[in-house]
């Protein structure tokens, strides 16, 4: 494909395509990613829909937080079970609120580590879903939820998270 046909202005995600240059030689071209550059809004719409539907189920007590995060992060049951070091059968139990309540703290922490969330976020939702930059429970990064900043920082206590809500003065 010719270079001019691949160029896309999308600084948020840059990729390398190999393209035909004007002199007929082939070589790398750094440009915006085709999928994200053309369809990112569709992607955000799909993930928003999924997020809303799962949050509703979570709030209604139909699924456990583990089920919520597993689906949001695109993990399958065998994949998550293998990463956490539990059997698929046990994992299936933990996807239901009843099974989730029987989990030990030690196992819960293992799940939280793999899912890259704070243990505390297994028991709370910081609901800023209107903000595209928000990701349920993802830790540490300061998230901008105009006019506030939300920061979840770790402490030396592995089970304790410090959540700060700060007025955005910028």
């Amino acid at each position: 494909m010719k270079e001019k046909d691949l160029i896309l202005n999308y600084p948020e995600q840059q990729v390398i395509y190999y393209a035909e240059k004007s002199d007929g030689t082939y070589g790398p071209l750094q440009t915006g990613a085709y999928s994200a550059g053309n369809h990112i809004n569709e992607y955000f719409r799909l993930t928003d829909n999924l997020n809303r539907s799962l949050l509703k189920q979570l709030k209604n007590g139909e699924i456990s937080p583990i089920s919520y995060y597993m689906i949001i992060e695109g993990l399958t049951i065998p994949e998550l079970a293998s990463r956490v070091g539990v059997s698929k059968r046990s994992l299936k139990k933990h996807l239901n609120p009843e099974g989730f309540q029987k989990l030990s703290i030690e196992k819960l922490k293992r799940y939280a580590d793999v899912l890259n969330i704070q243990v505390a976020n297994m028991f709370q939702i910081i609901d800023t879903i209107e903000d595209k930059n928000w990701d349920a429970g993802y830790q540490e990064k300061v998230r901008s939820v105009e006019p506030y900043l939300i920061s979840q920082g770790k402490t030396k206590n592995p089970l304790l998270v410090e959540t700060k809500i700060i007025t955005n003065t910028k």
Partner: protein
Amino acid sequence: MTQIPFRHIMAAHCESGTVTALLNHQGMKISEPMVFGIASGIFFGYLKTPSMDFPTFAVRSIPGQIREKFAKRTGVKFRGETFRNPEKAERELNKLLDQNQPVAVQVDFFYMNYFPTWFRIHVNVHFITIIGREGDKYYVSDSYHPKISEIDREALTKGRFAGGAFAPKGFMFYPVYVPDKIDMEKAIKDGMKGAISNMLKIPLPFLGVRGIRRFADKIIDWPKYAKDEDMLSDKVFKITLFLEDQGTGGGGFRFLYASFLQEASKVLNNPRLNEMSKEMMEIGDGWREISLAAAQVAKKKDFSRENLEGIGNLLRIRADLEESFFTKLGKELSNHK
């Protein structure tokens, strides 16, 4: 210590990009297409096992093979090591960095927090190069990122020791020997033979050109695996993503392979390979057509049999063209003395 002077370049693919950048750092002049081509990176596989919720496909060889096959065919030696113990893995990495040795590590892409969250997925076969450290942070040259990035120790360890399929197990590698003279002609020809074998000779119905045909036949079944329209839309859209933007160089690695053939024609002094590189570029254009068709179907959410068969038909044309292309490449190799 801080950063080791290292020429950071973006690359089409993380594994070929990492190998290329490390070899360039070592003083070997080689391009990413040449690494990819010599290692027979081009491939196709359509995968659906009973344990998989949804079918998927691959357009490149098994992770790790680019490094291994390139090394075998050129005589370059890499030292590679996996670890059971994360502390030991970190110590070994630090030791090498302190000796000014950039080191490639295998990670789960999800934990690479220098990328935006929406972009990160759990995939255990991402390769990055660590080029320095300072306190609890590491400097990273990632082929998919425009700049040198930073990652904290904890995230790097999580990425290196994620479990699941293709678990990295702390794997790290770096070049330890580059021969003074490499028989590039032989390496290129071996690479082409490997590609022909990948695409035409594996006697399994879901790999190579047969795999493209299986994909063409099976795509009409995709709606039955999806629990709703949004899920199906996401999966069909992933066809576009896998072919274009997940480290392929565009057109499902076919543009990258065309570049390899063009470069190979010069090394082998064979103008017919240059002509074939143009054919491969056109084959890649056809894969992009599939990407466009899949994105349109996903966006409109019109998963009628007719629309899915439309994508299937485009795939069949690719299969026919690639079968003919690699057969011709085989003949070209037999004729080339």
